[in-house]
C-alpha cells in the first residue's frame, strides 16, 4: 500500500507545482489545493499504514492487543484539512475579487506592486 501512496503523493506534488507555475490565477489556486492535499496524504502515510486495527483497548485490559494503527497522524491530518479548507476558501474569494478589480485572469498583469 505504501509504495502506491508514495506514487500518488509524488504525482499530486508534481501536478500542484505545475499548476502553480501557470499564469492563470485560477490554476494557481487549483495548484494550492492539490499541494495541501498532497501534504495531508503525506502525513497520513508517513506513520505507516495499518489495516483493520483501530487503536482501541479491549475492556478490562490496559493496552491494546498486538499492533494498532497510529491515531496521532489522523488527528493531525484532520486539523490540517480544516486549516487548508479555510485558507483555500479565502484564496478563492481573493482571486474572485482580484479578477473583478484587475479584470484579467493573468498573473503577468498583476505586477504593479513589484518594482
Amino acid at each position, binding site marked *: 500500500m505504501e509504495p502506491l501512496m508514495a506514487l500518488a503523493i509524488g504525482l499530486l506534488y508534481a501536478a500542484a507545482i505545475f499548476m*502553480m507555475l501557470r499564469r492563470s*490565477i485560477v490554476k*494557481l489556486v487549483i495548484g*494550492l489545493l492539490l*499541494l*495541501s492535499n*498532497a*501534504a495531508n496524504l*503525506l*502525513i497520513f502515510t*508517513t*506513520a*505507516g499504514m*495499518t489495516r483493520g486495527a483501530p487503536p482501541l483497548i479491549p475492556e478490562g485490559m*490496559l*493496552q*491494546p492487543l*498486538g*499492533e*494498532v494503527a*497510529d491515531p*496521532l*497522524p489522523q488527528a*493531525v491530518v484532520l*486539523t*490540517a484539512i480544516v*486549516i487548508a479548507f*479555510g*485558507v483555500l476558501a*479565502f*484564496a478563492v474569494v*481573493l*482571486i474572485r*475579487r*482580484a479578477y473583478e*478589480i*484587475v479584470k484579467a485572469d493573468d*498573473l503577468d498583469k*498583476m*505586477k*504593479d*506592486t*513589484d518594482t
Partner: protein
Amino acid sequence: MRPEVALPVLLPLLSGALSLLFWRSRPVQRFIAVAGNVALLLVSVWLFVAVLADGYITMQMGSWPAPFGITLIADMLSAVMILMTGIIGLAMGIYSLATTGRGHEKFGYYPLMHLLLAGVAGAFLTGDIFNLYVWFEVMLVASFALLILGGERAQMEGAIKYVTLNLLASVIFLTAVGLLYGTVGTLNMADIALRMDEAEHSGMVEVLAVMFMVAFGIKAAAFPLFFWLPASYHTPPVAVSALFAGLLTKVGVYSLFRVFTLIFDQTMGYLQDIMLWGAVLTMVTGVLGAAAQYEFRRILSFHIVSQIGYMILGLALYTPLAIAGGVFAIVHNIIVKTNLFLISGITHRLQGTYQLKKMGGLYRERPWLAVAFFISAFSLAGIPPLSGFFAKFVLVRAGLEAEAYVATGFALAVGLMTLYSMVKIWNDVFWKALPEENKVPASQTSVGDDGRLLKPSLWMMYTPVAVLAMMSLLIGVFAEAIMQVMMLIGDQLMSPSGYIEAVLGGSASAEDALLDRGELQAEIIGDRAEGAP
C-alpha cells in the same frame, strides 16, 4: 499551574471574541482594542519577570504529560518575544484608533488585530511543532484578511503574492512536520530533540533541516525567498503595515532560532555556511533594493529584508554571543521598524502622500516628529548610543571571534548603506522645502486610509511614536542590562538540555496517576514502533 504562560495567548483570543460580539458597536471595539492590549502588555511583563526569576515556565495543556499533550513553554527567548508583542500590540491598538478608516473598522479590523496577536503569541509559546504550524496559520489567516481590508487594486495584487508564497511555505512546513513525525515518532519539540540525538544520522535529517530552513526562510523573508514582502507590505493601511513589519517576519526568524538550536543542532555545521551567505545576501539585496526606491513605505519594506539578514547572521555564526546579538537585533528591529512605519503614517496624514519627491518641510513644521524619526532612523543604521548600535556591535564582535571576517565586513558596509537610505528620507521628507505644486492646506490632508475625513486626533498617533523612540534610546542607555538578558538567551539556546528537561521532566509534579498512564502509553507506542516495518 502557571497561568502567565497561557494568558498571552488567551487574552487576545478573548479580546478578539469580545470584539466580534460587539460587531456593530464601533466605540466598544475601540475600547477593547486598547483595554485588551493593555492587559496583554501587563501579562507579558508578568511572564517576563516570572521567566527572569525561574528560567523556564512550562504548562501542559489539559494536564496531559509532556510528550503526549501540547506543551506551552516560555524560556527567555519566548518571554522577550512576548514582551515585544505586548509593547507593539498596545502601540498599534492606540495608533489604529486614529488611522483606521470607518470602512475598515466596520469590516472587522479590531477582531483581526487581536487574532493576529493571538497567533503570534501562540507561535512564540508553543512547545509542539504541529501546534506551531497551527499558530502560524492563525496568524496568516488574520494577516491575509488585514492585508486586503479596503480592497484596492494594489492590495489585491500584493495579496495574491503574499498569500501564495506564504501558503507554499506553510505546505513545506507541514510536509516537513509529517516527515519528521515519520522519522522520530513524536511532535513535542523537546522530545524530538532528545530522539534526534539518539537517532542514527541518516540523510533524512539533513533533508528535514533544509525543508524547515526554506519554510521559515520564506516566512522570515530571507534571500532569495523575500520577494513577496516588498511587493505587499506597502499596500495595506499604514497601521497594518506597521504591525506586519514589527511582528510577522520575526515569527519566522524566531522559528528558525528555535528549530535550529533545539532540533537540528547536530546538522547545523552542514547548513552553517549556507545560512551565513544567505544572511549576507539578505542584508545586501535588501539595502540595495531600498536604495532604488522613492516611496516611503517601500524603502522601509526593503529595510525589513536587510535587517532580517542581521538576525540570521546571529544564528549562522552559532555561538552564544552571536545568538545574543541576533536576538538583540530582533528586539531592536521590532521597536525601530514599527516606529518608522508609524512615522510614515503621520507624514502621510500631514502631506497626503508616501512619495518622497512630493514631500518636504516637515522639520520646520513638526520638529518633534523629526526628532523621533531621527532617533529611529539612526538607530536602524546603527549609530551610537542608540539600540541599533549595540545590536550591531555584539554581532560584529561575535563575527570577529568566529573569524567570519567577510560576513562581518558586509554587516558593517550594509550599515553605511542603511544610513544612505535613511538620510535620503530625512532630506526629502524633513529637510528640503515642500515642493511648490504640492502645497495644500493642512486641514484637507487629515484623511483616513479610506478617504474619509477624520478628526485631527494626532495625539493618538504621536504617543506611540514618542514612546517607541524613547525605548530605542533607553535600550541604548541601558544596553548593559539588556545584554545580560540576551546572553542568558544565548546560553539557554546553545545548551538545549535545560529546555528539554523543563518540558519532559517537569510534568511529574502533581499528576502521578497521569504519569503512570503516560509511561504505559510510551510502552504501547514503543511496541508499535517495533512492530511497524
